[in-house]
């Protein structure tokens, strides 16, 4: 059998990249591993929310067989807790009018009713915090032992963005824990085994939506570019993969001293945090400023000045 035939058959059977969920195994955590805030805060691509105090955190011990991580939702008060992931139009357009099956591994500290929704929007690339319409839902009961739950939906023929949501059916009591991993959404009416993708592939898929350059060491490069004055340089950082859209913001640690500029053999510690200048889908430019006396011309390298300095850009839905 030729490679062309194999590839054609794989395409016809949709055996590769059949999972439309990115980071379904919760293996990528660029932003961090614990948060009590709503939004994109911990596991990449997962938008988290709750009606009251809830901690969203990485779980590494209580896991179903074959999984290294889960997302752990802990109610810090009586709360309804949920996560959701909007799927951009380019990655779900072919599902219009089709059956899709959502599968997920769930466990809970106490028997907990969980509802699995599919939402849709007729807007292109509708954001997670936007307006959505429920296609339908199914309610299951998560117990102390992991089990895989599946539900099949029919995607409306005019859907341009779809979004699975995993939500406690109602409020749960303070201290209730819900574990989620192995989330898969695929075409068809049956759930196939969870599709494992290599770490590098999954990270690249996530970096289309969020990229964080966190070297974790001092004097590690963050960008290069020209000095534009004796106290500032414009630093260009290429993205490892093309982002979904051009970012419109720059995130950093909030501490100027976490950053420095290497210029003409000397190191100039920042006196202001790095600032967004401009970005496209392939690269971003940031301003690094210091109180030193750099030459107003010549090249410079933006670097970390601590283990906590980072630059990050978002192109999330």
């Amino acid at each position, binding site marked *: 059998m030729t490679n062309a035939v194999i590839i054609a058959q794989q395409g016809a059977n949709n055996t590769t990249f059949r999972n439309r969920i990115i980071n379904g195994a919760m293996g990528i955590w660029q932003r961090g591993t614990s948060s009590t805030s709503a939004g994109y805060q911990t596991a990449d691509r997962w938008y988290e929310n709750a009606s009251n105090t809830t901690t969203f955190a990485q779980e590494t011990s209580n896991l179903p067989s074959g999984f290294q991580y889960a997302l752990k939702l802990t109610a810090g008060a009586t709360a309804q807790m949920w996560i959701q992931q909007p799927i951009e139009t380019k990655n779900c357009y072919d599902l219009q009018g089709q059956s899709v099956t959502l599968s997920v591994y769930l466990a809970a500290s106490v028997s907990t009713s969980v509802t699995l929704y599919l939402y849709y929007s007729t807007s292109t690339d509708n954001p997670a915090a936007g307006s959505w319409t429920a296609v339908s839902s199914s309610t299951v009961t998560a117990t102390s032992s992991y089990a895989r739950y599946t539900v099949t939906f029919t995607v409306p023929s005019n859907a341009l963005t779809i979004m699975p949501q995993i939500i406690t059916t109602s409020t749960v009591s303070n201290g209730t824990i819900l574990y989620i991993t192995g989330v898969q959404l695929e075409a068809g009416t049956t759930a196939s085994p969870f599709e494992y993708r290599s770490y590098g592939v999954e990270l690249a898929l996530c970096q289309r939506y969020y990229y964080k350059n966190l070297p974790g060491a001092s004097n590690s490069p963050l960008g290069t570019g020209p000095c534009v004055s004796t106290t500032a340089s*414009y630093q260009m950082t290429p993205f490892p993969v093309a982002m979904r859209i051009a970012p*419109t*913001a*720059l*995130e*950093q640690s*909030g501490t100027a001293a976490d950053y420095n500029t290497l210029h003409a053999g000397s190191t100039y510690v920042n006196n202001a*945090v*790095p600032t967004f200048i*401009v970005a496209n889908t392939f690269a971003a430019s940031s301003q690094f400023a210091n109180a030193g006396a750099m030459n107003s011309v010549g090249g410079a390298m933006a670097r970390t000045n601590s283990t906590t300095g980072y630059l990050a850009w978002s192109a999330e839905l």
Partner: protein
Amino acid sequence: MIYKIHSTNIDGQIIYARIDDDGKCRLTCTEDYPEFKAWIEAGNQPLPAEENN
């Protein structure tokens, strides 16, 4: 959390600084940043540049 006008970029776009409740700036953005747009739509106004620390 508030936003302040920070500077103007090389394309003439205004850059805003988000000031978190602890007083730190962890994000700078243009007016097209979705969270900034939502903050403005909620009736807020960024502080002018002259009030930057």
